[in-house]
């Protein structure tokens, strides 16, 4: 067993109304950042877990995302490659 660090990005599902993202986009544009076309606000979760190898660690975290960390109706998730903690 080894200790791995994995980060997960959770974002609002594309196509669904994202009022937080829109508010951030509007604020940036008001500040003069007219080049902003899209903004989305999500969550970034950092986990440290015990696993035999990086692949097993990533599989476990994928399972965590499906069961709790992301809402399957409204959110998408992406996990970063596991690194030794």
């Amino acid at each position, binding site marked *: 067993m080894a200790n791995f660090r994995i980060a997960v990005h959770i974002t609002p599902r594309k196509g*669904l*109304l994202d*009022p*937080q993202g829109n*508010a951030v986009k509007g604020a940036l544009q008001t500040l003069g950042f007219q080049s902003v076309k899209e903004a989305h606000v999500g*969550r970034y979760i950092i986990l440290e877990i015990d696993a035999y190898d990086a692949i097993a660690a990533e599989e476990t975290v994928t399972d965590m995302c499906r069961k*709790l*960390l992301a*809402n399957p*109706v*409204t959110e998408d998730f992406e996990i970063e490659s596991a690194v030794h903690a």
Partner: protein
Amino acid sequence: MKFGIVTFPGSNCDYDAYHAITEVLGEEAIYLWHKDHDLQSSDVIILPGGFSYGDYLRAGAIARFSPIMQEVIAHAKAGGPVLAICNGFQIACEAGLLPGALMRNSHLQFVSDAVRMRVENTDTMFTNLYERGEVLRIPVAHGDGRFVASEETLDQLEGDGRVVFRYADATGKITPQANPNGSERNIAGIVNDAGNVLGLMPHPERACSPLLGSSDGVRLLESILTKVAA
């Protein structure tokens, strides 16, 4: 009839529900602690409003894994009535008892107001004492009340008559202005496929006395009595 009201850390409408059941309805009510494993022979379960577990991660996401929820899910699967109000609705969706999800209000503001909702289906154990098309005045208080689901799910809910309440204006018209949170198709409340789980964002338990501005919620609770006792 015995109502079991679940108290999670952060629930804040459990007493409102208790008051409505015991004082207005004159029935028995008990509190069920989230760590308990026993529904204590409750006939009807109420998942009350509040901010269970501080709404951490997502509203309702953590409460769903409470020990008591495993019993509530079993009760619901066996056909037992569950009334899921506000945070309770969010928990019921997270637990898979109801389809869809509740997201941040489209205008990003917390909304605390009396809204109107139209009764869409009176053929449920929660609405059999209302008239179809009747407009009720019921309070809401939430930041994450925008009901969303896939287009297929929404079509299916509508086709099956499972959209029970819809936000409407005083004349019963379904308008964007009457929608307090941006919910898809103005949906305020839905039932599950079997019809024994109702989830809604408005608070019928807080609309049980003319002194508080409305008693339109009373018949929802009485409907359960007539149906479950029958």
